[in-house]
């Protein structure tokens, strides 16, 4: 293998050189000749009848090129939803129209009403203020349960109610679950809220539409995690532009966390307007606009019951969740509370009976979709909170209760439709107890108490389904797309390599870790290999990056393509060495005839492929470029155990995280430093959810947390130094790298860990507190202590 850059090397991230020196090329850095600017006039009410939009005086304002309203989009499609959930009666979900610009109604604060295109951004904004909008306010639909009551105001008049779907999973389990709960020795019940979050990537969304009339080609530059998905959705379903006339480029992207997966109205608008005006049109979101137009996350209200037998074995789980969809269905919204949530309700435990009910509800709020973890944090939070509560009710050690119920034999088919291929939950718990120094907790608690602070210890296990996803399986579950990925390995004449991948890197470090794999396989230096991503004109059709899928799915495609390269290169080498290709070995960049000292170097073979003078031309085509598509056989199942120690100030309710340990099993690891970084980032986001973040609306649908003055983001001093370990490795059994994915684990596993620790701290001081809804802000914790 390469001395310092193959699989397992903690290679520094090569992309950081440009990011840290201001040399990145983000979408907002793209400025095209003749570019115009768009400003969206957005609804400032949550719900209303849109009677009229009068643009006459605004059109006379300086610099205005054209003002678009919903009527201009009468002949194009709405923003599509990429997943159709079938409800418990076998009926398809209710799916509202989602116009590019509002028509007839506005459905949330931020719903775009009109778009002003002008010579400058300020002119567009000035003109937008001169547009006269006539809206009759309607009552805002905010509370999910009230939204489902008979006679409730409807978000969408043409739907029968505010219910998107009432999903049962699995209906056949329902009776057995009810019976198990009725016969249980103990049932622990918990009602909880997994609060709404705003993704807040550092880079706000940007879109630049461009059009070349000479060849009728449109280009959209956009802040996306998956340019091919955007091209497919926008081209086929919204604007009717065939793929060969539409290019989507997602250059450097400054964080996504899910919020940049989806196809947004602003992207369709800029592409449409560039064609209509025959000049480039650019939109750059302000941070304030991001709060009311980026898809938000979570927002589940749940009741969970855990049944145990007399020996404390779990016998059943039953959950009922209300999942907020917001005003429209964002691209993957329906699948988050269902197939990314219900399928994970077994957690790490051999609970034989599980039934999950989810009611997805429309409200007059910003649409909700997948946010780092997406459904799996919601599942983990319920399971791990209710187990902790059960342990307290039963007076048993929470770690022991978990260990006792761990799944220990693999493969394991859960009662919620998925099969875990491999894992070792006992090993990660053993490792956790070591790195968290569980044994030393009592002394640390005594020390905290001596300083007048309450100290709590919380533990948590998680499992997630990553490597999304087997296409046939997700198709059967309602996905309107395949979820394979693709890679093209282009070996150049001198031996350097460009790998074009469908995955997209927006912080994950693919440009460093992916070459490590190819370098390992070929025995060459990784500096000879570059990754190309983010441009539909340059990369094969792949589905992008989310769901911790890039390495497990796209990386596997890259391995398959590289294997094809090796096979072909061996044929060329065999010809050059006058041997049989079956006898050729590739090691350290040299092709050698087995058992001899006859060899030819990598670069000689690649040159021969492009200068085929002495070449097996009758059997082997010139050139050295291969593409592979890879459709995974199963999800991957990363798992781990986390522990947290908190201090609570009993006088103020302020929580500080003193220690945090994470023992993860991600299978094989390509770059342990990048994995550390992914875990750190996920933990920070999960701690943000546990202690700080909350997206709050008032009863009229106005956003109360529309800026960082009120939406609390975690900062460096809110998080501790982490003890992170990923030495427990049970390689994935069905992908060629044995990798599982690590991008979301931290955000999935940390919220319940923190909450468990805070409850432990409060109980240590005699407070009869069994649960506090996140975020555990000082005022909430103090209020809980008041009884």
């Amino acid at each position, binding site marked *: 293998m390469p001395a310092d850059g193959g699989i397992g090397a903690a290679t520094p991230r090569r992309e950081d050189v440009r990011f840290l020196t201001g040399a990145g090329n983000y979408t907002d850095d793209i400025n095209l000749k003749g570019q115009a600017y768009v400003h969206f006039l957005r609804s400032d009410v949550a719900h209303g009848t849109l009677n009229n939009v009068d643009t006459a005086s605004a059109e006379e304002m300086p610099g205005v090129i054209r003002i678009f309203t919903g009527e201009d989009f009468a002949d194009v499609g709405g923003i599509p939803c990429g997943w159709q959930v079938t409800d418990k009666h076998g009926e398809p979900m209710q799916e509202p129209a989602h116009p590019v610009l509002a028509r007839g109604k506005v459905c949330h604060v931020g719903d775009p009403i009109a778009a002003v295109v002008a010579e400058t951004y*300020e002119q567009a904004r000035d003109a937008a203020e001169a547009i006269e909008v006539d809206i009759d306010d309607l009552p805002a639909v905010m509370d999910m349960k009230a939204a489902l009551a008979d006679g409730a105001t409807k978000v969408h008049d043409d739907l029968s109610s505010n219910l998107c779907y009432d999903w049962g999973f699995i209906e056949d389990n329902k009776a057995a679950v009810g019976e198990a709960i009725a016969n249980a020795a103990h049932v622990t019940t918990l009602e909880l809220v997994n609060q709404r979050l705003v993704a807040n990537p550092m880079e706000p969304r940007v879109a630049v539409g461009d059009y070349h009339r000479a060849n009728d080609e449109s280009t959209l530059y956009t802040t996306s995690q998956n340019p091919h998905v955007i091209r497919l959705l926008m081209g086929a379903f919204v604007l009717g532009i065939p793929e060969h006339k539409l290019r989507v480029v997602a250059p450097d992207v400054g964080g996504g966390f899910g919020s940049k997966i989806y196809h947004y109205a602003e992207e369709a608008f800029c592409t449409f307007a560039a064609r209509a005006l025959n000049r480039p049109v650019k939109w750059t979101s302000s941070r304030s606009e991001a709060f009311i137009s980026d898809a938000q996350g979570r927002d589940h209200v749940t009741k969970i019951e855990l049944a145990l037998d007399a020996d404390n074995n779990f016998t059943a789980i039953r959950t009922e969740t209300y999942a907020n969809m917001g005003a429209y269905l964002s691209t993957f919204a329906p699948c988050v509370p269902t197939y990314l949530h219900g399928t994970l309700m077994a957690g790490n435990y051999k609970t034989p009976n599980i039934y999950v009910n989810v009611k997805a509800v429309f409200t007059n709020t910003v649409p909700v979709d997948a946010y780092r973890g997406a459904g799996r944090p919601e599942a983990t939070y319920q399971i791990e909170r209710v187990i902790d509560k059960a342990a307290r009710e039963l007076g048993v050690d929470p770690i022991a209760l978990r260990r006792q119920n761990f799944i220990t034999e693999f493969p394991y088919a859960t009662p919620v439709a998925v099969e875990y291929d491999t894992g070792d939950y006992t090993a990660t718990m053993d490792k956790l107890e070591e790195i968290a120094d569980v044994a030393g907790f009592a002394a640390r608690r005594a020390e905290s108490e001596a300083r007048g602070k309450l100290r709590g210890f919380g533990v948590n296990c998680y499992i997630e389904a990553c490597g999304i996803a087997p296409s046939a399986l997700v198709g059967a579950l309602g996905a309107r797309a395949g979820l394979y990925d693709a890679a093209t390995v282009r070996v150049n004449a001198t031996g350097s390599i460009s790998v074009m991948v469908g995955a997209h890197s927006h912080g994950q470090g693919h440009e460093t870790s992916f070459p490590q794999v190819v370098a390992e396989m070929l025995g060459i230096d990784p500096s000879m290999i570059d990754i190309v991503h983010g441009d539909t004109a340059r990369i094969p059709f792949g589905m992008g990056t989310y769901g911790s899928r890039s390495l497990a799915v796209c990386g596997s495609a890259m391995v398959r393509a590289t294997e094809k390269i090796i096979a072909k290169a061996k044929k060329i080498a065999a010809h050059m060495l006058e041997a049989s290709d079956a006898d050729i070995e590739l090691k350290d960049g040299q092709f050698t005839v087995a058992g001899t000292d006859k060899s030819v170097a990598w670069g000689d073979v690649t040159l021969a492929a492009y200068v085929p003078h002495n070449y097996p031309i009758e059997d082997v085509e010139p050139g050295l470029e291969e593409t592979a598509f890879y459709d995974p056989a199963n999800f991957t199942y990363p798992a781990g155990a986390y522990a947290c120690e908190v201090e609570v100030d009993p006088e103020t309710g302020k929580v500080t995280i003193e220690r945090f340990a994470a023992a993860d099993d991600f299978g094989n690891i390509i770059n342990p430093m990048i994995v550390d970084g992914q875990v750190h980032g996920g933990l920070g986001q999960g701690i943000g959810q546990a202690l700080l973040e909350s997206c709050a609306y008032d009863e009229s649908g106005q956003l109360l947390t529309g800026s960082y003055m009120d939406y609390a983001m975690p900062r460096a001093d809110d998080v501790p130094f982490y003890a992170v370990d990923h030495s427990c490795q049970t390689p994935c059994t069905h992908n060629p790298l044995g990798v599982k994915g690590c991008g979301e684990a931290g955000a999935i596993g940390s919220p319940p860990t923190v909450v468990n620790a805070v409850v432990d701290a409060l109980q240590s001081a005699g407070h009869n507190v069994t649960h506090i809804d996140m975020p555990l802000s000082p005022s909430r914790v103090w209020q809980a202590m008041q009884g």
Partner: protein
Amino acid sequence: MYAFDIERPTRLTDAVKLLSDATDSQLIAGGQTLIPTLKQRLAMPERLVSLGAVDEIKGICTGDDGALCIGGGTTHADVAAGAGAYPALAGLAANIGDPAVRNRGTIGGSLANNDPSACYPSAVLASGATVVTNARQIAADDFFDGLFATNLEEGEIITEVRFPVPDAAAYMKFEQPASRFALVGVFVARFSGGVRIAVTGASEEGVFRWSEAEAALAGNFSAGALDGLSLSGDGMISDLHGSGDYRAHLISVMTRRAVAAA
């Protein structure tokens, strides 16, 4: 932002003149509140008159009476570094916002804005400081006039703040988690003539003195002297980040801690 003109006078008298001419002018000091307001298009002045180049209102010195005199145009960072004679005040300045805010924001701008969650008003009120303007001197007890309101007249510029230096003092801030402004901030100052306590962040009326606690501490400057004293949550700010009752409770906690730390 709407378009506006900007003037950057170098002399105080020129700034005063600009503010009194016919053009609709808005004074800008560090701009830490005004610039975000402009960006949100919530203000549309024709002209900004910047104090940034008026050096005569910057800096820190000691007055003949021993007071610490801080120019109205002095940044928080300069107060943090230069107010060593009054450590509680220097410490307060050192914990306002983040470095970018502290390097732009000024004491005069903060006081003129009188944000109900700002730190400086509590220090001025608890210290019994004197706010000096281009026109007059205003005692701290007369200066603050509710949320975002002061005794300043139109076009009046804060040139200096004179802080009597107490025998002992401390500022305790409990931060609002998102903005890190004071959810409750309590400044306690002990002088030979008595104790002054000012509370920011909490009241719907803005910064105020907690006179019952001042009286309790006058004869016995110890946290224990506050036992049994509490404020009602009525009239306290109640929002996402805490109820009025919570803020009232925090005032007691922060006051005890400030007394202990002073």
